[in-house]
């Protein structure tokens, strides 16, 4: 009921500020009001910047091993000391943000693309296609993520970031597909979709012009949360030896490289920074996701 009431303020009043009232802008305004989410955006932005400008922020090569100085303590040259191969931890931290974000982002993007395509086809057409896609998803869901990645990575002859990311996407599409399918299923019953069909709109038009823009909310929200999850997953995979191999720095493999009670106790500079970076980034992304959820969720439009 309230939805009606809220929107009842007369159209004429908002005429002059029409450009500010696109649904996206409204969501944006709502998002801006969520302080934690905005903080999240800033934090993420800074981390992205760090990744981009890493070469200017440190003179060290993150992959250069200085065997004369392994497990070095922080000093003027190596601000966060060196790791067990004598590589500068600070440099690895900076460059690591690149790789970790790239992994998180591209795994998310891959998955979202696969999930959106499959989910929208399943949700829009329903019937047999839907059945096949969903059965596949069920089967895939029955393999726990880690186990599947382990199995697939073991098969592959070579792992690079692209392949790594594809594997992650390959094993995580069902979750997103389900969500998008569900969104499409409920959208399909909306009157404006019927309306688009009744004017003779093609399937393509209906999917891309009408359904997708309205499904963007759940897609974006899930995308952000998924990205956070992927960053964590990468570190978990590193832990069991299936992650991105050294010397490429990622926060995940930095963390696992520093995995022992000795490091935990006596070399905090080796694990706290990557740990904190993971936590901060995941937190930031989660807050952004939360903010987006509130901003994009039509149910929250009431207030």
């Amino acid at each position: 009921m309230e939805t009606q009431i809220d929107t009842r303020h007369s159209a004429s009043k908002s005429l002059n500020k029409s450009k500010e009232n696109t649904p996206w802008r409204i969501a944006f305004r709502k998002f801006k009001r969520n302080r934690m989410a905005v903080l999240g955006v800033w934090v993420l932005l800074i981390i992205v910047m760090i990744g981009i400008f890493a070469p200017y922020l440190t003179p060290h090569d993150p992959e250069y091993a200085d065997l004369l100085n392994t497990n070095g303590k922080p000093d003027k040259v190596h601000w966060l000391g060196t790791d067990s191969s004598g590589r500068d931890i600070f440099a690895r931290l900076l460059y690591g943000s690149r790789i970790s974000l790239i992994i998180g982002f591209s795994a998310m993007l891959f998955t979202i693309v696969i999930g959106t395509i499959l989910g929208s086809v399943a949700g829009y057409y329903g019937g047999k296609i839907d059945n096949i896609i969903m059965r596949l998803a069920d089967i895939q869901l029955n393999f726990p993520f880690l186990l599947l990645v382990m199995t697939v990575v073991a098969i592959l002859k070579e792992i690079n970031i692209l392949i790594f990311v594809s594997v992650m996407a390959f094993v995580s599409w069902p979750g997103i597909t389900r969500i998008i399918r569900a969104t499409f299923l409920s959208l399909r019953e909306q009157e404006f979709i019927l309306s688009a069909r009744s004017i003779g709109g093609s399937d393509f038009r209906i999917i891309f012009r009408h359904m997708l823009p309205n499904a963007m909310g759940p897609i974006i929200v899930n995308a952000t949360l998924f990205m956070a999850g992927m960053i964590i997953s990468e570190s978990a995979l590193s832990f069991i030896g299936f992650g991105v191999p050294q010397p490429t720095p990622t926060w995940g493999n930095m963390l696992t490289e520093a995995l022992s009670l000795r490091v935990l106790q006596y070399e905090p500079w080796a694990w706290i920074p990557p740990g904190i970076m993971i936590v901060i980034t995941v937190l930031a992304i989660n807050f952004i996701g939360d903010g987006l959820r509130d901003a994009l969720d039509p149910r929250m439009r009431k207030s």
Partner: protein
Amino acid sequence: MYKYILRRILIMIPMLVLISIIVFTFSKLAPGDPFTGEFDPRITKDILDKKRAMFNLYDPPYKQYLSWLKNVLQGNFGVSMRFGFPVSDLLAERIPNTLFLAITSLIITLIVSIPIGIISARRPYSLIDYSATTFGFLGLATPNFYAGLIAIYLFSIQFGWLPAQGTITAGADYTGLALFWDKFKHVIMPASTLGLAQTAGYMRYMRSEMMEVMGKDFIRTARSKGMPERVILYKHTLRNALIPIITLLGFEFGALVAGAVITENVFSWPGVGTLFLNAVINRDYPIIMAINLIIATMVLVGNLLADIFYVIVDPRIRYD
């Protein structure tokens, strides 16, 4: 209902077969076999070949699969190529441990997340809510192997409160209550770290679910009848809020077992997770197959149980 359950169980069979085919294909695609890494030069190629032949590794893959399938249908998971023992024996040793860990973890998750979720839903934006949210996000953001290590460092080595490794105190010969207490002390740390992300997730989920239900018309109805807040919260709201949580639980099992790979590693917990990790590395496909099959079955059964629980808490759902 019984017919429904029966049907669901029957439908699992083709699913499991399909899953087993996929897993089999995967494990056959992987280069090497259990004997590749074993190249004690004194063990001549002939000895290895004899062993390979013993496990039919020279048969065409489809034949290997079919004979595997035939054996499984007769309840025989084969023999581990690595250990030489029947896979079922190996699993029988380990499954109870993993189940114990997973179930404890689930219980801890629920015990922690549901009340906190309720409290933060009741007083949104209060101090408790904010602390819970912060903890929740931290839990989501901390890789659980690290959480495990930090826990060991703190609770076992610094304070000496809890044992760091294994399921029971070696050589202690506890019985009865003391045994139970000992086991409990051993499981608490791995179970909490295993469930860390889940706990955090459930807490957030519970909170939003509770808040959502609190906004429902029927809560207003209950209020209008003059029901005290306690009844409204724990009877009317909670029962409805639990319904979606139960669906999640159904999916949780597989995730827990997968997560166990890592936790078991950190805590030297003798469960299927570590067995699986080693089996993957060693290409011990009878074990890989069996564990995948069991996990798939657990997930399917978990889903089925979730559906059954669903019926219990949500009378709107009926299967017949």
